[in-house]
């Protein structure tokens, strides 16, 4: 494409194929204790 460069091919939608194991950390367990972000957690089932 000339005008658009895609840098992510829909990783969120593709993750629907994952088992949804819920083994990942809870966000407040790491550095955050007051301002929850979920998207910066790591997947335990890559």
């Amino acid at each position, binding site marked *: *494409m*000339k*005008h*658009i*460069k*895609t*840098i*992510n*091919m*829909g*990783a*969120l*939608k593709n*993750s*629907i194929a*994952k088992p*949804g194991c*819920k*083994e*990942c*950390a*809870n*966000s*407040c*367990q*790491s*550095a*955050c*204790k*007051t*301002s*929850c*972000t*979920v*998207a*910066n*957690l*790591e*997947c*335990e*089932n*890559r």
Partner: protein
Amino acid sequence: MKLHKFKQMGMNIVIDVNSGAIHIVDDIVYDVLDYYKYKDLSEILLNLKDKYTEEQIEEAYNEIKQLEEEGLLYTEDPYKNIILNDNGPSYIKAMCLNIAHDCNLKCKYCFASEGDYKGERKLMSPEVGKRAVDFVIENAGPRKNVEIDLFGGEPLMNFNTVKEIVEYARKREKETGKNIRFTITTNATLLNDEKMEFIDENMGNVVLSIDGRKEVNDKIRIRYDGTGTFDDILPKIKAMVEKRKEGKQYYVRGTFTRENLDFYNDVMMLADEGFKEISIEPVVLEDKHPLSLREEDLDTIFEQYDKLAEEIVNREKQGKGFKFYHFNIDVNGGPCVYKRISGCGAGYEYVAVTPDGDIYPCHQFVGNEEFKLGNVFDGISNDELIKTFKNGHIYNKPKCMECWARFYCSGGCQANNYSFNKDIHIPYELGCKMMKKRVECAIAIKAKLMEE
């Protein structure tokens, strides 16, 4: 909202909200997107004829159309039914253990009321701690990974209990096949060789509190006699971090307030001291508190985040990169959609336990009797409240459903929502605005580094 576009670091970035696709586009596409869904091509040509040629506009239009057909722009939300049909049990597998409702500091912004959570100053006994370990193992069901955060107040005021809990958990881990990960959050004042050795050996993560520059830290993070802690804690934090061998996590963590809206300088001070994992979070306080962040501070805060994002890219390119916790978004990975739509987990996957063994939805709800879920000795007595938290996801938060960042923040902090709006389903708006800014910066950093 299906699409979000913004400009950062000289790039035009477009996020397809529901698929998670991210695109860098030129000015023509950026402008055509303003009309694409509302006008046909002939009208768009008319609207933009003074800026671009017909050929340019048509090309841009067709590229947008192609991505839409490929499911990378304007996609629908296919996830809602997953969560609405999830009637299965939930498992409590993460726990914040309030080892001490007491603290040797009286930081001016403390949400825990200088450590006592508005109750009696108290230390957790080893018996309560061990019972809490059993409770979380029993309630974790099929989950293999169990997390325990040793928190307070200041947990190192009760180091013997910390040691006994860890020793007991290691034994129970072997018996049950669970993988227990410990984190400790400390103000660093009580660190000595013995404690550092123990922490390094046993903690998956150690969170070390310092607010940045001496003048900033010492105005807020003070002892009972009013003196600042900076000169005492910086060498201890450095010694602790030096012990953490490759791959072992730590975070040097601070809070910014109205007193240091120029918190970029605090992050940089910590980076210049050699720390590689840094978190500086916005304080959350009611409006009338002198340290609280307010709507009128946002422009300054956003400028600081912008500046920080640019400097992180610069340093990364020079091989001197560091991690800023809130910018750690892995655009090609991160948690799966199941996690993102279920939220932070407070109240049904994650709970907090007081020195008496009382259970609350998270550390921020501790002390609010309305939110007591039960006790580690008697179990959960308020199943309804657990359901409320489990159902407190984005699809039950109307404001989140209008927001492009919903799959990044997953509905925000329930405790903040409650303390500002008396309802976990109504987001804490100032927090939302800062969150959105941080997500934009995080994505821009990744885009920039991928671009070059």
